[in-house]
């Protein structure tokens, strides 16, 4: 996938004026947060589960090499193979080779963000193998030559009209504006693909060390048809997804669906272990797990290690005011929203992704809803600091910060200055108490008015309260 993160500002500006996108994004704001809140309210132990999940992930990361070794040994014991890939390129090559060895012409695919991360589809196509996305959202996007804009609702940026038009063009059927009819068309079309595919590729939400199993979570059942019908099942996943036992997996599963879609449980949670057994009437004859590193192991031991706890539920982006305003494509690469603003700089380089960790108001909602308590604002701040240290921050911003720092280190001068700016902003605002044009602040006032300060400065109010004894 082409990297468009350096053009984030321009992408965002276009997104804000895109009528169709804005309509579609309304579905994020009204849907996910309410559903999550309701599911959480039904589970009194939810916060305690989050604490345990955080601690368990920390334990896993501290022993990551050991759990991965055990996972690998158990995959082999179940008749499968593990392939280790340090880079996205290694992973693409490995999967292509496995498909070629299986003599594959078409492969069906379950939803996998890691496969997006390694740009798998383009690589397979370039070598004459046709990948077929089977998740409804991913299928729509593949027909449109588009990419996911959300990690669990990939086609969230589209409206019914878009899907209707796309299916009309590709399925050669009368145009329908009924979502149920459109889904039926996809069901029938993909059923033929499931049956003839030579290889099925799925992702994995968890890798279970105890049994050498991979687990996928889907509502559609597409991942199950993908991995049950073809002769070869390839799982593409990443190293931080390993968990010790089925009990440990259950802890994460209780958090995942509720945080993601607000469901009590996702419809299909499927554990796959190796190849079909003697006497089994269906199931794959070959089982490969392709484990991708792609910068993850480098996050261990540093401040970004906490990001490796992520279970890809998308709660952070569902609750993010920035994501809600511009959608996922503006971020310019695979992972959008707060989690993407932390991961993308690691995977494509801070030079290209520096704007992403800056695209946050630090309202803290992402951290508040994260099921594994990742301090996302802190990690975005890590990247801002990194950007500043590498002199990637624009000169004007550096000067601005320098000036602010000068005053901030001199409290009495700072207070004087804030009193003066408070007064001058209020007089500038006039009767309406709105500022339409701000010196050095056009970027703000071009889009909206700046509200005038409502009263005295914080320090003035603080001192007044202390005097009257209302300081509790």
């Amino acid at each position, binding site marked *: 996938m082409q990297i468009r993160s350096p053009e984030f500002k321009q992408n965002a500006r276009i997104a804000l004026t895109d009528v169709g996108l804005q309509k579609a994004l309304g579905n994020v704001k009204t849907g996910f947060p309410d559903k999550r809140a309701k599911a959480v309210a039904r589970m*009194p*132990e939810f916060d305690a*589960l989050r604490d345990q999940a955080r601690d368990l992930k920390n*334990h896993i990361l*501290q*022993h*990551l*090499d*050991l759990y*991965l070794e*055990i996972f690998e040994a158990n995959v082999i014991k*179940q008749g499968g193979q593990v392939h*280790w890939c*340090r880079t996205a390129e290694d992973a693409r090559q490995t999967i292509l080779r496995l498909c070629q060895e299986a003599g594959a012409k078409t492969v069906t695919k379950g939803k996998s963000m890691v496969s997006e991360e390694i740009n798998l589809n383009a690589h397979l196509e370039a070598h004459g193998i046709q990948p077929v996305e089977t998740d*409804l*959202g991913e299928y*729509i996007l593949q027909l449109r030559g588009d990419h996911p804009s959300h990690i669990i*609702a990939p*086609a969230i940026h*589209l409206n019914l009209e878009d899907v209707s038009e796309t299916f009309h063009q590709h399925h050669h059927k009368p145009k329908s504006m009924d*979502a149920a009819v459109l*889904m039926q068309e996809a*069901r029938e079309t*993909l059923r*033929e693909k499931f049956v003839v595919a030579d290889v099925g590729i799925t992702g994995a939400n968890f890798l279970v*060390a105890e049994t050498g199993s991979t687990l996928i979570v889907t*509502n*559609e*059942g*597409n991942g*199950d*048809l993908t991995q*049950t019908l073809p002769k070869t099942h390839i799982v593409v996943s990443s*190293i931080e997804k390993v968990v*010790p036992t*089925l*009990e440990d997996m*259950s802890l994460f599963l*209780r958090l995942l669906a509720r945080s993601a*879609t607000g469901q*009590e*449980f996702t*419809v*299909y*949670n*499927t*554990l*796959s*272990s190796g190849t*079909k*057994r003697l006497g*089994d009437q*269906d*199931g794959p004859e070959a089982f490969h797990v392709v484990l991708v590193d792609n910068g993850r*192991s*480098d*996050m*261990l*031991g*540093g401040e970004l290690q906490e990001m490796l706890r992520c279970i890809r539920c998308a709660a952070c982006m569902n609750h993010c005011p920035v994501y809600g305003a511009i959608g996922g494509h503006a971020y310019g690469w695979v992972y959008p929203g707060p989690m993407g603003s932390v991961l993308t700089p690691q995977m494509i380089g801070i030079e290209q992704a520096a704007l992403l960790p800056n695209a946050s108001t630090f309202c803290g909602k992402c951290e508040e809803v994260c099921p594994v308590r990742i301090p996302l604002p802190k990690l975005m701040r890590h990247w801002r600091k990194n950007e500043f240290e590498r002199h990637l921050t624009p000169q004007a911003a550096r000067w601005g910060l320098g000036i602010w720092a000068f005053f901030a280190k001199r409290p009495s001068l700072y207070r004087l200055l804030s009193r003066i700016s408070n007064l001058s902003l209020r007089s500038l605002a006039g009767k309406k108490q709105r500022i339409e044009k701000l010196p050095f602040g056009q970027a703000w006032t071009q889009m909206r008015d700046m509200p005038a300060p409502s009263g005295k400065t914080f320090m003035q109010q603080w001192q007044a309260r202390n005097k009257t004894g209302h300081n509790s």
Partner: protein
Amino acid sequence: MSRADIFASIQRGLGRRQASAAERAAVEQRLNAKAPNLIPARGQLSGEALQQLFISMAQEASAEIIELTRIQEVPQAAALWLQEKGIEELVLASDPELQALDWSSTQGVLRREGVAQAGDLASLTLAFAGIAETGTLMLYSHPDSPTSLNFLPDNHLLILRRVDLVGVYEEAWNKLRTQVGENWPRTVNMITGPSRSADIEQKLQMGAHGPRRLVIFLID
């Protein structure tokens, strides 16, 4: 070599080379103990309350529950359900328990055994366990239980014994460990209601790729 590189990089990040004996012991201990984490109070029930929770959670997930007493009643109940839907065929798991039943009441329904094919309208399988906390069914693959029966047919009918109801996922995993011993199955399915998707405008539609309807015959 990627594998060695990845492990070296992990160990560099963790600030050590090989794990210490204490770290290995901690990992071994966790894997052997298989200790449950916090178990929500909701599923810690028994008897009638457990069954009621299972039924209400499964129905909430849009599964249909048909309460019976004996497995011998299933052929007739299945035939009736199929008749109501205008379906005249049924693929069965090749399970001795199903084979032993008297199917004479299902005349007019074409029966077949084995794996599912694209276009099949209905299947009948046996669930291994029912998990009350979310109304979830657990099934696992074995020679008499092909996985395709759970996904390809338009309608999935299942038999679940009341004695196989458990409260929470952890109990189901322990039950499975006891059942299969060293012979861990290729596939374990946890199924909660019929297939669905909200990928078009976040509006939920039933019957995406898997079964459009999930029917549970609850028996003693």
